[in-house]
């Protein structure tokens, strides 16, 4: 069975409002084990050995990141849980936070011990305001039960900006600045929030931590593929029978996820990882899902045969155009130029030249942009040009016919 519950182990099983119910399910035993029997290096070592990687998109080794922050000398260190979840088609963190807030807090408490953080933040997107009290109450309860004597945690609410999910923009936002990305290096584990060593982890990444500490690194690293250990939580939406959240072992195939579990039929294409995610044609349905192939945040949107790929990429670009922070030239002005081309294409006013310009623009944006948004914005454009080029050329050809006819005073409708 490809389905396995690690991050979602308590979802639907414990009462998210009741710490006793969480503890009855074995909650906080991992934390107590870490606190009472392990040194910080040992915790970091265990996470490193487990092969846990970031679940927020980039897939960086969690243990290495912690080690870097752990080794950096500073009187103050910060831990941030990234609950900004703004990526299009992603809703797994909402599901986790709704059903298992204590699991996240336990993960954060362990991370705090490991790196020596005294202050933690949960950066919650404004759209998830309904979860604010649930999380705040869980923090109060955990404190009352004596699990947070080493670290304070505060829920910090965003104010509506997708880019604030990018780690450096997120830190700017907490500092009371515009949520613009910073150049890197310096990297957050060395110099992050207010210049201090800072660890930023996605909600799902932290959910795996108690499991690893409790069951040992080997139990976790036994699951998955070469570079991708454990499980991944996917958010499936689009043209499927059963949209929702699914947790599968790393390396499970796209087919198992979208056909067997979510019930998709007649698949034309699938976008994996949100608005900056790869677009795969239906025939690649056997692709294993892992960092080695494509994964991103685990957003999986399915398109059936009736869908128009250019429309979908247009929608992706509109989103990115709206959400670009505007700090650097290639992303800010490149997305405007890209939007203009797509606006024209879908209106039936495209020209042959547009495809070449899109390719050249993609190159400038992906190589020169300051952060992941601008760098990855061309991904769906390039993928759709690779796998569905004829949709672009057909559209442009039709537009040319229409222009020709109208020039002769004839009217046509496509």
């Amino acid at each position: 069975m490809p389905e396995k519950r690690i991050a979602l182990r308590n979802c639907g099983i414990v009462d998210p409002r009741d710490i006793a119910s969480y503890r009855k399910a074995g909650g906080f035993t991992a934390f107590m084990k870490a606190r009472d029997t392990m040194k910080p290096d040992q915790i970091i070592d265990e996470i490193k050995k487990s092969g846990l990687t970031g679940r927020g998109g980039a897939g960086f080794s969690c243990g290495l990141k912690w080690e870097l922050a752990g080794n950096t000398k500073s009187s103050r260190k910060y831990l941030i849980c990234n609950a900004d979840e703004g990526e299009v088609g992603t809703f797994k963190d909402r599901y986790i936070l709704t059903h298992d807030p204590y699991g996240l807090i336990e993960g954060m408490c362990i991370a705090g011990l490991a790196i020596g953080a005294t202050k933690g933040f949960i950066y919650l997107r404004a759209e998830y305001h309904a979860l604010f009290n649930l999380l705040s109450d869980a923090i109060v309860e955990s404190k009352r039960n004596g699990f947070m004597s080493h670290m304070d945690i505060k829920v910090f609410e965003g104010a509506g900006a997708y880019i604030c999910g990018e780690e450096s923009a997120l830190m700017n936002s907490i500092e009371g600045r515009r949520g613009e990305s910073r150049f890197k290096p310096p990297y957050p584990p060395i110099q992050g929030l207010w210049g201090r060593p800072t660890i930023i982890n996605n909600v799902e990444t932290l959910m795996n931590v108690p499991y690893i500490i409790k069951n040992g690194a080997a139990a976790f690293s036994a699951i998955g593929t070469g570079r991708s250990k454990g499980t991944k939580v996917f958010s499936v939406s689009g043209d499927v029978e059963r949209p929702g959240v699914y947790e599968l072992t790393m390396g499970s195939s796209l087919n198992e996820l979208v056909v067997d579990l979510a019930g998709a039929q007649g698949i034309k294409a699938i976008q994996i990882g949100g608005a900056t995610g790869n677009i795969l044609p239906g025939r690649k349905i056997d692709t294993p899902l892992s960092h080695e192939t494509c994964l991103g945040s685990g957003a999986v949107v399915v398109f059936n045969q009736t869908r128009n790929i250019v429309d979908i990429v247009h929608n992706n670009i509109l989103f990115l155009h709206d959400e670009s922070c505007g700090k650097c030239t290639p992303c800010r002005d490149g997305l405007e130029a890209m939007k203009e081309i797509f606006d024209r294409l879908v209106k039936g006013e495209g020209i042959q030249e547009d495809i070449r310009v899109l390719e050249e623009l993609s190159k400038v944006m992906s190589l020169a942009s300051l952060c992941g948004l601008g760098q990855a914005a061309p991904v769906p454009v390039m993928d759709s040009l690779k796998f569905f080029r004829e949709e672009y050329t057909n559209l442009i050809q039709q537009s040319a016919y229409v222009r020709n006819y109208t020039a002769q005073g004839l009217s046509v409708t496509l």
Partner: protein
Amino acid sequence: MFKRFKKKTAIIDGEKVTFRKGATILETARMAGIEIPTLCHMENHPPTGVCRVCVVEVEGSRTLPGACHTPITEGMVIHTRSPKVLAVRQGVVELMLSAHTGNCVNDPNAESCKLHNLASDHEVGAPRFTITHPRFYPIEEKNPYVQRNLSKCILCRRCITACEEIAGKNIMSIGYRGFKSKIIAGCDTSLTTDECRNCGICIEYCPTGALSHPENQHAVPPSRMTSGTTVKKQPPPGKPSRAELLPLLKKEVSHSGCLSAETMKLVAGKTDLSISETFGVSSFYAFLPREGNTTNRIRICRCVPCFLKQGASVITSLQKELGIHPGGITSDGKFSLEVVSCIGACDQAPAMMINETVYGNLSPDKISEILQTY
């Protein structure tokens, strides 16, 4: 090991260079007599890295890092003029040209525009990347000392740094976000003599013609130019810190529905930030509206998963039912309507939020029933 005693070295354009720890690629290259073009960079000030003109190729790196802010490290192999670098740099310059409204052709001061010069250095011809509606703003002549023609602005932010770190004022900031980003003063009002006097320092640092001395005004006497000295402001004790800004702004919005200029001035006073900075921060975020005091904010998603599930027809039905367009407010002030980015309810697409409540699996015929409950 010998290595530990060796000087730190790297290779730029085939030349071996030595450097001190912490130096940037740009500093090291300039020391070695290798010129890398820059626009936003200001010597002796922390880099901002916004313009991306200074990108270089570092072997082993996936992207082209900016030379002005990337530290050079032992063994780095750097190319500042490889075909890849030149092509991308040219693209960046083209985008800057396309995005601003410059009438450089008949501008007598064009030779003094650094962007103009960069474009000719990089043989930028007819723009490949067209932007039909470049940023455009009317010329401002209210201030007798600084004339602002922001249509020529390329958002390099040098004026902000000059005003804050050299003049020791904090008059300018950056407002809005994405393509709409703009250099602002106050709550994006024109620059008046109330705040800005005749130091003229920002003008000297503007690489284009966006900031200039009004014609009847002579250039600032050189004695005023205190280039390179940084004035740092200390926040007074007892005031809420900058970190309180976002929570304070959010509180104001939940109190009064939106952020008026008055409110922003109030918050600026509380946190001891400038008004322009407060406005700059608040105008960045979608959930901090500046107008439209309304009881119920409807936010409907327009991203791909909702769009696949007839989200567009739900938006049409909302518009009909409310009698307003996105961005509008009903005449009784009861509802406002916004079309927004993904709200993380894609499993219930199409979805919308009214205030904090999510409504999923919408269809056009469900709308009036939902609205009636408010």
